[in-house]
């Protein structure tokens, strides 16, 4: 039993750190209405950049996180330019960047994984100072950063530029007719989004004490699953801030589910299938219900108007 509890505690802190990636996915998927597949690559990129800087270059772990964020932003900008300047469909543009990043990440690390065992991370530093457990520290730091980012996004999307960004996802024709360069807004959104994804990759790398070439595989599906779970759990909340919070909460719940099914003896490799099924069901069920309702409501009788 204590095994499960311990696993759950770890899952919560992991969920919060990955939740920052989900905030990035939220920007593209929910606000811009684009499924951006760059995420798998930019998440790993954040982790790889962070690891190599801390281990090989002896960089301060906090600074390394910022570089990881920047690296993610560059990756997002590449997808953004492919999509806006050259009219490549967003999904394909994301796939191209993602695939390219696999090689880039290997080049950066020089091998397929790097452990961070003997170096300082932002988490180990606080553990050293306060003498508390690593998992508790990751949780607190994760929540702190997530809250800061939610506040930042809340502010950003309330500004004139942010409103133009939301309008781009809502009605592109309209906002262009009102003088907004939608290429720029899309580029900006993809850049910010992948910056957050890169930051999340860096944080996860420091928290789990290794970076791995495959660490981003399936990140986009986790992101979508988290958003969907968050909507199911907290769908009644309508304010923008609570929608962002529910995305992070959804991610925590995702990792809790994962921890539980793993504890129950499921093969870790089957987890990706489970994620895919969760997302697919979440997308299918509302459509199926809608169709069923229409089917059901038919009758040959004359309705009373």
């Amino acid at each position, binding site marked *: 039993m204590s095994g499960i509890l311990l696993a759950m505690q770890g899952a919560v802190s992991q969920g919060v750190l990955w939740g920052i990636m989900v905030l990035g996915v939220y920007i593209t998927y929910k606000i811009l209405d684009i499924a951006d597949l760059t995420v798998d690559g930019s998440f790993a990129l954040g982790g790889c950049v962070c690891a190599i800087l801390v281990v090989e270059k002896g960089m301060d772990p906090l600074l390394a996180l910022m570089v990881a964020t920047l690296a993610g932003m560059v990756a997002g900008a590449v997808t953004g330019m492919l999509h806006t300047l050259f009219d490549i469909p967003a999904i394909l543009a994301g796939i191209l960047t993602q695939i390219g990043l696999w090689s880039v990440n290997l080049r950066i690390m020089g091998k397929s994984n790097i452990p961070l065992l003997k170096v300082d991370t932002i988490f180990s530093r606080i553990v050293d100072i306060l003498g508390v457990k690593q998992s508790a520290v990751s949780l607190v730091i994760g929540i702190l950063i997530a809250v800061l980012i939610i506040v930042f996004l809340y502010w950003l999307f*309330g500004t004139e530029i942010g409103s133009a960004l939301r309008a781009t996802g*809502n009605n592109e024709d309209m906002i262009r007719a009102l*003088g907004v360069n939608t290429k720029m807004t899309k580029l900006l959104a993809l850049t910010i989004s992948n910056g957050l994804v890169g930051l999340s990759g860096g944080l996860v790398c420091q928290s789990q004490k290794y970076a791995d070439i495959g660490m981003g595989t399936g990140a986009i599906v986790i992101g979508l699953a988290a958003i969907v779970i968050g909507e199911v759990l907290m769908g009644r909340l309508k304010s923008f801030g609570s929608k962002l919070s529910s995305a992070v909460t959804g991610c925590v719940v995702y990792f809790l589910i994962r921890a539980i099914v793993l504890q129950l003896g499921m093969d870790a490799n089957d987890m990706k299938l489970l994620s895919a099924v969760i997302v697919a069901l979440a997308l299918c069920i509302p459509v199926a219900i809608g169709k069923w309702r229409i089917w059901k409501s038919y009758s040959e009788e004359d309705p009373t108007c």
Partner: protein
Amino acid sequence: MLTVNHVYKTFNKGTINEKKALCGLNLRLEQGEFVTVIGGNGAGKSTLLNMIAGVYPIDNGLIEIDGVNISRKPEHRRAQYIGRVFQDPMRGTAAGMEIEENLALAYRRGGKRTLRWGVTKKERELYREKLKILNLGLEERMHSKVGLLSGGQRQALTLLMATLIEPKLLLLDEHTAALDPKTARTVLELTEKIIREKSLTALMVTHNMKDAIRLGNRLIMMHEGRIIYDVAGEEKKQLHVSDLLAKFEEASGGEFANDRMILS
């Protein structure tokens, strides 16, 4: 004010679907002119408006507004001169955003968008006053999502948004065609009122010949990418639908008499 000089546009050039939409079109609009545009399907009416707005690039020619050459400016840059209302009520507003937010987006047309807050308190009062003009009670629903409004309400709102910052040129592309007759009349009256009060320069495409004669102070008829008839002032006021039909038969050899035109 507006100069359209020898503008050509061909879609799908060099393919089997090649379509000459504008063939050396010339048009000059003076300040304050309200021009109605009529013509059969495929005459190039919408293309003309889209070319002026910059939706697609033109192949040849020159488009100027107030002496500024905008021929090669992208759509979002031309927006500082031009207010637009589309045929589809869904296209002119952002459904997922509040009425107030939509107005705030329109209030910044042509201006620089910064990191200042998207809607200020002072603007809110302005929007409330402007919404009252519409007489639809929208001033009490400023935080409602635009997606909850009817097509007519959305079109009225789009009209307000297009003229919130006074445009040098207002483009109306069959903006009442998708509405029911009663709503269409309301939106048309509103259009007339706003254009008159601000003495705007406007181009209005319509399929309704009576409206085309009744509204505005100049009428142009298009056929196969050219203007074939241009009438203003007293002469326009004396026009009858039958005159227009005759004019068109003459130009097109009878093919103009499609049912949509006759019924309207």
